[in-house]
């Protein structure tokens, strides 16, 4: 890790606030993220761990540009950031095929590129027989397979992987994990979010542990995961993170 690589993404002292109330101004503010600074370099896989509600998904949304940070800056040095998640925002009324094309285009592909990738994605998702059916007729596993395959096949400078282990049935899961490993282990830059410590430890070069919207520890995967485990053990029964405090 001593070689210097180009940075793809920098977050500097990023904070984000949800307001829990109804409407525009009302309600109490919840600090979802506090003072987050991190960076991802080319070809690197950064792991993100932490309990439910600690702010992992919010952080990914900030990186994607869906949210704007309340404080601090998100600086991107790359063009394409795409998300590999189980539910990529499909339209239940459209066919699987239409959803696939639209999904690719939302992730930055041109119409031509999307159509060119179509068959390959369908084949990987093993949905040949159902691809022209409306998505609402799909089982949740089938939908997840389609979402995963789109995310996997899309080119991206930085790939955000959010909890995608456990897609579909056993056979597909093995295939999906192999494909994802292959991609992560290639020159792909990845931010990898997972509750599966074993995969985090084996895939990531660096891990960040989020707790209650703030970075608790960062560094060597083994060390951070160990700290995280000790913390969870000692806080068992104390309750989940509240998502922040009143401000």
């Amino acid at each position: 890790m001593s070689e210097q690589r180009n940075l793809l993404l920098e977050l500097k002292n990023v904070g984000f606030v949800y307001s829990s109330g109804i409407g525009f101004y009302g309600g109490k503010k919840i600090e979802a993220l506090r003072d987050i600074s991190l960076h991802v370099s080319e070809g690197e896989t950064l792991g993100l761990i932490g309990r439910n509600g600690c702010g992992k998904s919010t952080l990914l949304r900030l990186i994607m540009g869906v949210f704007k940070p309340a404080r601090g800056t998100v600086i991107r040095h790359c063009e394409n950031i795409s998300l590999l998640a189980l539910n990529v925002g499909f339209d239940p009324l459209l066919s699987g095929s239409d959803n696939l094309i639209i999904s690719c285009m939302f992730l930055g592909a041109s119409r031509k590129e999307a159509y060119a990738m179509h068959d390959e994605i369908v084949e990987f998702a093993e949905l040949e027989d159902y691809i022209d059916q409306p998505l609402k007729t799909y089982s949740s596993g089938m939908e997840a397979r389609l979402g995963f395959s789109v995310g996997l096949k899309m080119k991206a400078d930085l790939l955000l992987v959010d909890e995608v282990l456990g897609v579909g049935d056993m056979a597909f899961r093995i295939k999906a994990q192999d494909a994802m490993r292959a991609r992560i282990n290639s020159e792909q830059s990845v931010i990898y979010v997972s509750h599966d410590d074993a995969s985090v430890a084996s895939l990531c070069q660096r891990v960040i542990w989020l707790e209650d919207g703030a970075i608790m520890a960062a560094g060597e995967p083994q060390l951070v995961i160990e700290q995280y485990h000790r913390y969870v053990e000692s806080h068992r029964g104390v309750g989940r993170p509240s998502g922040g405090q009143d401000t």
Partner: protein
Amino acid sequence: MPVAKSAATFAPGADLNGAMPDNSELAGHVCCDTAMGMTPYEYGASHVLPGEIYLISVNSRQFWAVFFTKLRFNLRSEVSRTYLGYLWWLLEPVFFVGALYLVFGIFLGNRADGFLLFLIVGQVAFSWFSRSVSNSSGSLRDNKSLINQVAIQKIFFPMLTFCQDFVKQMVVFVAMLGCLLYLGASPSIAWWGLPAVIFTQALLTLAVGIVCCAIVPLVPDLRFLIATLLTVLMWGSGVFYSYKDVLLLEHQQLFLLNPIANLIKNYRQVLLDGVWPDWGALALISLFSLVLIVIMAFVFRRLETTFARLALQ
């Protein structure tokens, strides 16, 4: 992806090896509370330069490529749906016209010549506005899951809803013209004025739709109010009565200030009386709508991520 490029360029620094720049102690348990007490990171949102928000922007080719592809898919899926779907667009005005004709034409004995034609024209125009506005007002909520996953300017959604409704409405207009001819209306040269009236209504419908779309996420309860207002608007727009017969002369100008009432008047003038539309009124309504659309474009730009946040909550 056509996104705004970051202005900043990176100079590789010494902190690349470590996990966290400037915070060597972070590997331990640096708790957030101590960090909270310090001020350096209290930049406020203004520190984020506009160019550093990465959205598929309305100015980009990608935006319009996705837009038209999605529009085509949505329309196609509506056609192929097995139940009423598309047909509903034709049936709704038919039901309304039937009910209104029953009440006002038969029960209340208003069976003047051409009352049915009069009703059809008014109702078809009003249904378009009413349905499109109410669809637009829910468009952010309906696309919640997309909004949370994809960085695209949110004005995409009300515009898509509007265009989808617009295409369907064109089919309704064709059916309406057929119906008018069948019921004995005589085409005149003034019918060529119809596209201008339709165009004006399209602008107004888009403008009002976008406004409602922006308001509903901020104050969700307004959704019900919008439904009520649309009903009130129907009563106030002369769908089933002629303002010339019902209103006092001094109130008529006031009545025509309601753009929907004015448009309905123009539709009837063109289609039933063979008179060219009131160009001045059409121009005014178009101008008003355009101004509203421009203002809303700015509002959407400003509230871009607020909408994403509200959609999630």
